[in-house]
């Protein structure tokens, strides 16, 4: 039991440490976004492993919050990087990935 617990925590801790290395090294912002997403998933896996080893369901609602937070964080930072485009090539913002409704409103005189 304790050997299995130690092996589980070692595997998850090593994965989290390697994700932290990529988070520190990452040459661009998107690498850090990917590393943060993976790190939060590894953290939720660690919480679930703790709950399973201790048979204590107190951290189970925290899992829902952490998975929500990973999704919202990565999507919002990805949208932010997509909005950092400085110049539109086609002139109407179509290459910025704007939705069709926004383009149609932009074309009206």
């Amino acid at each position, binding site marked *: 039991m304790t050997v299995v617990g130690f092996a589980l925590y070692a595997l998850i801790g090593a994965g989290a440490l*390697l994700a932290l290395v990529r988070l520190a090294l990452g040459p661009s912002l998107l690498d850090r*976004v990917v590393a943060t997403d993976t790190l939060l*998933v590894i953290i939720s896996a660690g919480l*679930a492993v703790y709950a399973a080893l201790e048979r204590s369901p107190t951290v*189970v609602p925290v899992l829902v919050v952490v998975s929500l937070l990973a999704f919202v964080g*990565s999507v919002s930072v990805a949208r932010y990087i*997509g909005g950092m485009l400085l110049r539109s090539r086609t002139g109407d913002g179509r290459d910025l990935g704007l939705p069709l409704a926004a383009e149609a409103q932009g074309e009206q005189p």
Partner: protein
Amino acid sequence: MTALADVVAFACLLAGAALCLTAGLGLVRFPDVLSRMHAGTKPQVLGVLLVMVGAAIRLDGWANAWMLLLVAAFQLLTAPVSAHLISRVAYRRRHVRRDLLLVDEFRGAGHQDVWYQGDEPKDAPPEEPGPVQPS
């Protein structure tokens, strides 16, 4: 019965934890954003499913099982959405090593920025990619 359930639960937990370690290794060793995302998505789907199955077996109650199932379903729903957003921005921002791609269906179709100021990596391909090399 309980011993068998514990063995199954620990096997699932060990497989999920090993997938977390492979995600970390892939994040450190792979060359660009898309391949790092490929490595990092392994624990997001299969690892989380395995860990949730193991925890649901160990926690032994329907309320906890439903909440863990909620977490797994949420991961399955949101992982493609965030991966799509990140990979689209990565392709547009020239974070992709295009010399390592075997098939590039968006080449020359205006899906990449020509002018660019931002956080591109040091090994980003040049702004105007050359002609397609026949393979």
